[in-house]
């Protein structure tokens, strides 16, 4: 029996993160008699952060190299490397948020960071999978880790409820996902995307398999009507987790979706129309529901549904322009959305037995209290709303441009109308921050810790720089997309 040759360089970043996760987990036993303390937690977090940075360096080092793979199941191409970078970026920012947030409610620091890193690994594998079994296991790794992270705040009923809902519905939609994978296997006799692309009949079995896979993706991406869990889970989960998963999961799922859809290229005419309808539904639903929210986290949750809809426009547009636009949007979204969540985490009242939610009123008069923080938050919100010249504007511009170039003009118009609607609720918060005086409803957790401050600063610099260097950056991503579309 010959063991297969495995090129470990394909998964260097993942291996680094796995190793870090193991180290972090074992850190529990080093000096086990010592009581958990914030200092200890910071030490663990620092190790985890170093691991993420190393993995990012490994991913960057690989950029531009030719694609290599392991048994056709995991592939290291530029698309995958950019995905790793988005996920690692989101993870690092989310980790900085957890830095001082975590010791507030739990002592299980090493467990938290180990699970967190494993979720990161799951996302990275998911975006690099080119085979359905691998894809499914990666998906489950990140899902199960996120179920637990969602319910990590054990003292809070809302967190438990969120975890339960996320888990039950997640398992439910996973069942559809594997059923879809099974049908595609039935159609082609293989689970390799390459084989599926070559052999798919394009008939009803292909379509049914694809539709059921889309259900699984739709669930992870929070696409209407598979989105119902999103607001509840995002609200109930600890804010650092919410911030991380809102970006990381989406990134991994979108890249995996592109890979699957490329394999299903035969029926482009069918699925592009379906995706266009889903995009319309998702954007509109998310934006409308966000209008009436009083909880900041819930509002951002609905906004993230809407943003998934915008990105679906890019998926509809196809492999080249659409993919580079979606990649760009993911980077922009990582910065602006996590930035917004970071500020929201500062507006939450400490409290352990109720939902410790930040309401919109908590932002009242923020400008008067912390002008810089209010300006930064306004930048994040305006970027989310798509105001030029911030990152979010260019993200939307490229998405709509991709749609228009590939003939989906009505979809671009729907997207534009939606961004106009969405401006309302983002601006509502901005107005509250700048134009009202602070009163008893307003709140700010203080002092601002260095870690959170760093996360906010990085997010803001990213939001601004992506706006300024939008062109060159998109060209970089465009090359990765071109290589992928040509492969």
């Amino acid at each position, binding site marked *: 029996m010959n063991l297969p040759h495995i090129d470990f360089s394909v998964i260097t970043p993942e291996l680094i993160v796995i190793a870090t996760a193991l180290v972090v987990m074992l850190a529990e036993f080093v000096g086990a008699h010592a009581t958990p303390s914030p200092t200890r937690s910071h030490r663990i977090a620092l190790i985890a952060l170093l691991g993420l940075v190393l993995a990012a360096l490994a991913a960057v080092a690989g950029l531009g190299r030719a694609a290599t793979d392991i048994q056709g199941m995991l592939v290291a191409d530029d698309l995958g490397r950019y995905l790793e970078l988005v996920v690692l970026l989101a993870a690092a920012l989310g980790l900085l948020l957890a830095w001082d947030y975590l010791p507030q409610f739990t002592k299980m620091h090493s467990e938290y960071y180990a699970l967190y890193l494993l979720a990161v690994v799951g996302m990275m594998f998911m975006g690099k999978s080119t085979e359905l079994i691998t894809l499914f296991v990666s998906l489950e790794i990140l899902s199960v880790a996120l179920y637990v992270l969602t319910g990590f705040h054990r003292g809070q009923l809302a967190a438990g409820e969120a975890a339960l809902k996320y888990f039950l519905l997640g398992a439910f939609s996973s069942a559809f996902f594997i059923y879809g994978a099974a049908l595609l296997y039935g159609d082609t006799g293989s689970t390799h995307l390459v084989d599926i692309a070559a052999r798919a009949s394009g008939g009803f079995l292909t379509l049914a398999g694809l539709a059921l896979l889309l*259900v699984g993706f739709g669930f992870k991406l929070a696409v209407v*009507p598979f989105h119902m869990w999103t607001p509840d889970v995002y609200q109930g989960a600890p804010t650092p987790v919410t911030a991380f998963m809102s970006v990381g999961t989406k990134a991994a799922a979108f890249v995996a979706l592109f890979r699957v859809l490329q394999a299903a290229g035969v029926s482009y005419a069918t699925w592009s129309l379906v995706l266009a309808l889903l995009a319309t539904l998702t954007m509109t639903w998310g934006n409308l529901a966000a209008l009436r929210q009083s909880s900041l986290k819930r509002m951002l949750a609905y906004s993230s549904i809407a943003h998934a809809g915008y990105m679906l426009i890019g998926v509809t547009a196809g492999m080249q322009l659409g993919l580079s636009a979606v990649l760009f949007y993911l980077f922009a979204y990582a910065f602006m959305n996590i930035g917004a969540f970071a500020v929201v985490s500062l507006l939450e009242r400490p409290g352990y037995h109720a939902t410790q939610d930040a309401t919109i009123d908590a932002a009242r008069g923020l400008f008067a209290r912390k002008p810089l923080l209010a300006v930064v938050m306004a930048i994040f919100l305006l970027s989310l709303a798509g105001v030029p*010249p911030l990152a979010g504007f260019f993200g939307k511009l490229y998405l709509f*441009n991709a749609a228009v*170039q590939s003939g989906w003009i009505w979809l671009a118009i729907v997207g534009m109308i939606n961004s106009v609607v969405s401006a309302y609720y983002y601006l509502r918060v901005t107005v509250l921050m700048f134009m009202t005086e602070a009163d008893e409803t307003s709140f700010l957790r203080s002092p601002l810790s260095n870690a959170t401050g760093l996360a906010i600063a990085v997010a803001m610099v990213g939001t601004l720089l992506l706006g300024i260097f939008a062109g060159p950056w998109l060209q970089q991503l465009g090359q990765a997309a071109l290589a992928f579309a040509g492969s």
Partner: protein
Amino acid sequence: MLNYSWLILLFPAVGALFNAFWGRRLGPRLVKLVANAAVLASFVVAVLMAISLQALPASAHGQFELTLWPWIHSGDFRVDLAMLIDPLSVVMALVITGVGFVIHLYAAEYMKLDDEHQPLDDRRYARFFVYLNFFILMMLTLVLANNFLQMYVGWEGVGLASYLLIGFWFHKPSAADAGKKAFIVNRVGDFGLALAIMWLFFLLGRDAGSLAFNDIFHALDGATLAVKSALGGVTLLLLLAATGKSAQIPLFVWLPDAMEGPTPVSALIHAATMVTAGVYMIARTHPLFELAPGTMTIVAWIGAITALMAASIAMVQTDLKRILAYSTISQLGYMFLAVGVGAYAAGIFHLTTHALYKALLFLAAGSVMHALHGELNIDLMGGLKAKMPRTYWQFLIGAAALAGFPLLAGFWSKDEILYFTFQQNKALYAIGLGTAFLTAFYSFRAVFRAFAGKPRDQHLYEHAHEQSQGMVAPLWVLAFGAVFAGLIGIPAAVGGLFGLEESHMLEQWLHPVFADVSLPSLPVVWELSLLAGSSLVALLGIYLAYARYVQQAGWTLFLQRLFTPLQSLLEHKYYVDELYTAVIVNPLRTLATFFYRFSDQTLIEGIVNGLGRVTMVVGGGVARLQSGMVGLYALSVLVGVVGLLALMFLVG
């Protein structure tokens, strides 16, 4: 020198950022120094730009493009951050920075007190100037853009600044509502602009992969007939955008409410600069409009009808700033009329003179408002001339210029518009002339009611006092402009009388931009007759205002003595005045009330609020579906599953 034109943008940007971050610590003295210096520096740059522009070789067609930064490069599509420096944009930059600087000076003094006449705290004082500098930056971005996208950025930016500044007294619900109204109404227009830009890109920009004005206009040469006919739609969308920003029918309703903002804001944004962006945009994109004669006609008619309607409403208002607001709408109508008949240079001329005298009027009104502790009702004023002589003269000069008093700034520019309108369409000319009459009447009504006669509210009168030099002095600059600015545009017919060649300096200056447009001309006699006619109408209007208000209000001592010889004649006129009231004012008042009620309160308000409410209700319903029940969530997933499968099968 032109290579350094980007400095004009840098100064206000630095000013805004500086005050944003350190404004609180600096204290008001340094804040105003920074803000004013930034705008003054920009003004100097603008002047230098104008001088350098003349030195360009003839081959440049008076144009200079300065690329600052490669902005968006996506495939074959590229948009640069670039400045288009040509006579038109330089005129706009001069107006924005020049008038802007004077208003900054005034505001430095005016904003020391808040709307309740209490000292304004330093932080908000700094914030005000941050917004104001930001506005200047965005307005310059708008007019100096070399492409549609950058113009759109400026367009949105000035809207944002305007929204922030209207709601500056945010604790007043009316101010917050006004800000919201301005925002929502402008959104309609902005949407039109966004659509127009996209459409244009498809029609003309796709081959060049560019949205630059020059590329788009070059592409017009080889455009097919189908493309040219589609321009009708594009220009209509552009017009929609322009009506939003420039407060024309049907999107004018936000401007009167916008007077809730501090007075310097009303003067700068809602009179002199931002609201003229629509006129500028049409002038800038005139090659498109020239190919869409249908839209041009609509532009002209919208301008004329808006002018008439707003002027008639201004006659029945009692709030001093609202009179000026409707007057602004009306004057913007003239500008639309000008560009609608193809007289772009005349439109820009009127834009320039209007910026001067209307800013003057607003700032003078602000002085009055300060003196009366926020009171703006002209029914409660009267006799202020004695208390505030300098402000009186300033307001009088402004009103005279607005009324088209012969030889003042407004006279020349308005007359030029009427001259070109006369040649195109007699009906439009009649409306324009009628509006000129109303304009003269209402502007002097305001003058007489506020400054002449006996004080009607003794208490207010007692408190009134002249404002400090810091507020009064800058206005003399504007007053000088309001008197003499017309001299840059003396029509050739008049210039000919004095042996001046090319006496219309502004038209000469703008010639490279509008070289492609040719306008007919009339014999000199005709032109002079029209001039005389306009003068007559203006004087008649002023006289009627005098007869109506000075007499009915009872004679002040001063006026009584002045007019004693005419006493019997005026007494005789009393009957005429009554008649005039019955025949003209009352029907007009009914009409105005109707316009006001119908358009302002019912129709537009209904649509705006209705749309908002429907969206909110739907949003609430959508959120209510989120009942927190897992079963329902799973049901939603299954609905999606079945829907997806069915859809896939149906389509596939």
